[in-house]
């Protein structure tokens, strides 16, 4: 199976762990990831005012590129990218004015042919032809948990993992339309499918502090602390995330958290794709564990690779 994949700029630079583990894991599931030619940063934030239409150009251009390369799905792992791409796509379908304006911006854009590398301009309006999927949705709906289960090489023995959705995957509920924001099941079902035990805790969709960790660090420190603390209290051995910013706030800044909250002993943070790759038998050297500030090696201890039948 071949599918278009959008890593996002952060995955290529600072958080390669998420990108590498995604690729390695999907290789084991016979899924070939294809990046759309000449993709650019999605813009990170979906513009929330009716007038900031220019901010929609970059994500729509990417989606249009996918369409022109013959794809009808775009898979992404980064929550920010996922939200921007999906909401931009919907915005064009729901609002005729945005549809007109954004397509007008892009009509003069330069398109690169993936085979010949020829550059052309002036092409078809984007009309919502591409469906944006989060990797978790893709795994559940297109790959299917049965295939994952039958390819599992390592028994994770119900390792207690706290799924952390963060804000962008589930909200706003109608636009993202992924799952029920109050009682979601998507991430939990994934964890169970790869052999982990999903921990239920009340902070799974509470904000980690987001970009405030730069402008107002104390607020973000507290927010991330509350998530980690709740996960720990409910028995989690680690928190699994799907966003490089959540990872940064909860892993890279865990020193700051420990300084501010002395009672907090620490908790490793991993990407859900690292768990997937590990379960599917990928070698730990390509999981990107070196990027963690809070050592997560303890979760990925080498055990004899065995066939696990489910």
């Amino acid at each position, binding site marked *: 199976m071949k599918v278009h994949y959008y890593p996002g700029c952060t995955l290529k630079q600072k958080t390669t762990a998420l990108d590498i583990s995604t690729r390695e894991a999907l290789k084991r599931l016979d899924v070939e990831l294809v990046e759309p030619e000449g993709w650019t940063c999605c813009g990170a934030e979906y513009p929330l005012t009716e007038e900031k239409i220019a901010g929609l150009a970059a994500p729509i251009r990417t989606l249009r590129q996918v369409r022109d390369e013959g794809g009808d799905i775009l898979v992404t792992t980064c929550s920010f990218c996922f939200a921007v791409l999906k909401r931009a796509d919907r915005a064009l379908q729901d609002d005729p004015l945005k549809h007109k304006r954004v397509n007008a911006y892009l009509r003069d854009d330069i398109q690169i042919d993936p085979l010949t590398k020829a550059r052309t301009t002036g092409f078809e309006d984007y009309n919502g032809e591409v469906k944006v999927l989060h990797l978790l949705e893709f795994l559940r709906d297109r790959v299917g948990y049965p295939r994952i289960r039958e390819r599992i090489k390592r028994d994770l023995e119900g390792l207690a993992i706290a799924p952390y959705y963060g804000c962008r995957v589930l909200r706003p509920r109608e636009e993202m339309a992924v799952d029920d924001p109050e*009682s979601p099941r998507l991430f939990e079902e994934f964890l169970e499918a790869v052999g982990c035990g999903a921990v239920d805790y009340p902070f799974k969709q509470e904000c980690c502090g987001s970009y405030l960790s730069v402008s107002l660090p104390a607020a973000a420190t507290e927010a991330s602390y509350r998530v980690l603390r709740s996960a720990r209290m409910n028995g989690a051995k680690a928190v699994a995330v799907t966003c490089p910013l959540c990872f940064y706030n909860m892993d890279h800044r865990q020193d700051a958290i420990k300084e501010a909250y002395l009672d907090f002993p620490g908790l490793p943070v991993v990407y859900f794709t690292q768990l997937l790759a590990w379960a599917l038998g990928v070698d730990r050297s390509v999981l990107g564990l070196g990027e963690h500030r809070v050592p997560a090696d303890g979760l990925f201890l080498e055990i004899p690779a065995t066939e696990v039948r489910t």
Partner: protein
Amino acid sequence: MTTKPKLKEKRIGLFVCHCGVNIAGVVDVGKVAEQLKDTPGVSFSTDYVYMCSDPGQQMIIDTIKEKHLDGIIVAACSPTLHEKTFQEAARLAGLNPYQIEIANIREQDSWVHTDKEKATKKAVKIVKSHVAKARQNENLDPIKVDVNRRALIIGGGVSGLQAAMDIADHGYEVILVEKNPSIGGKMIQLSETFPTLDCSQCILTPKMVEVSRHPRIKLLTYHEVDSISGFVGNFKVRIKKRPRYVDETLCNLCGECEKVCPQVVPDEFNMGLSFRKAIYLPFPQAIPGTYTLDAENCLGLNPVRCGKCKDVCDKKAIDYDMKETITEEEVGAVVVATGYDLYTMQALGEYGGEKYDDVVNGLEFERILSASGPTGGEIRRPSDGKVPRSIVFVQCSGSRDSEKHLPYCSKICCMYTAKHAMMYRHRVPDGQATVFYIDVRTGGKSFDEFYMRTVEEDKVLYIRGKVSKIFKEGDKLIVWGVDTLTGKKVEIEADMVVLAMAMVKADGVQDLLKKLKIATDIHGFLAEAHPKLRPVESLNAGFYLAGCAHGPKDIPETVAQASAAAAKVGDLFAQKELVHEPTVVPVNDELCSGCGICLTMCPYTARTLDPARGVVVVNEILCEGCGACAAACPSGAAQQRNQTDDQIFSMLRAMLRD
């Protein structure tokens, strides 16, 4: 179209009303009267300031007599307001009331236009069309039918009980059907009732006993209405009797069967907070006073499987061979009093859904407060039985939320939350009671004073802010709220939370109402005929509404509404015979081909196909004269009385001519 023989020309009187300035301010009423006075058929034409007033009506009566009029047109407001008034005036003058025409030149003209000249021209057209119609109006007599002076009440809660007693006290027979093993509804589950703090069972049980002993009330518990056919004054009801497996006339409540029954299930009466056996008495004051065997949870109704209860029953009251039976009753009126349920907590994921034992709804808290409840009236929390030192009460849980839940206000929660908080403070004086509210609605008599007591005397802390999230941390429930009045976020560690869940339509009743074709609103509550002026009648003739089945309300209003419904039933029964508007749509056999299109159009199932003759037959009592069948009929066999196709076409011609 049939050609009618030329009738003798009519002598119609036209009265154009000023309605003060409502009409005269825009339409030149004098001009209208003047322009119409020479129209064929019109013998008299005038205008007057208020036709509906006594002198106005007297003018009609006098003019009919003086000028020998045989038709009247009143050009005024909508017929929904005064058609009956003028029909009655005509009748007093000796003219058939169905010769009255109302030409609406207010709602259809003066109230929606501002150009005086054009509005006057329009008024002339409107009146001309009515003249054309009036020339062909016939004398009609109301349709008469007998009334069966027996009432059916569906539902044995306080509203059903009140209506039953009132109707029976009038001297009529009543059949009360209740689907649960005992009457009492939700009110019997309550502990104290606001604003008097009366013990609910103490004030309700006398009514329950009175109903059970009333010579004219037939009490059918553990029964369900299966179907109703017929029409107002003449209903046929099929009632399903569920097998109790216990003979209520023999059971003496010794309780031996309960002791030996091995099946333990959650007790619905205590909202699942305690258990009962498969053979059980719902509550001590249950009426009828008998045990009931719940077949779904019984091991098998078979001595081979169990049979323990039967073995120990001295009175030989237990009979596993009882079967479901169906009986038929005939009644003249039906009062629907099927009550309510509470919105499910599962819908509020942000409050934990149904995950947390110590987050309860109002009815669960009532059972905890009740002396006959699972904790004997001591306030203890469900998870570990500890006495809660801090309870948070959350109002508007599911109500007033047009986005995801229910847009309406459930009316009773502000009052019962105040009551709950007050009761808690009385029993646990050092306990902290906090109420999160958006508004506090205390519109009834002595209600606000009661709420003030809660705040001033019992020192319950009321915080204005809607709770965003409730979750468990260790032993406590964390409540995230806000005080909008001081602008501060509030976080409370509570031992227990009581959610004032929205009141919704009664579970499982939707199907029954659909079967009975009783109109409901979009929320599943019974639809009244008019929200202000006809609050206890359904638009379906013969059906009356009472209690929370109609919408959220408290006990005083419920009792008042039940008595009102009973009074309306009394109105119906007081009539010698039922009178129905004759402006129905009969069938012309000669033209009817039996195609049956009109059958599908009729919302009142008034038309049926007679297979023997191959023509359609109409039950004139059920026909409400909506005219849908007449419009659909391809052969013109369906013609509405005093609104025939001929009349309609002549109205159009009159309007379009100039």
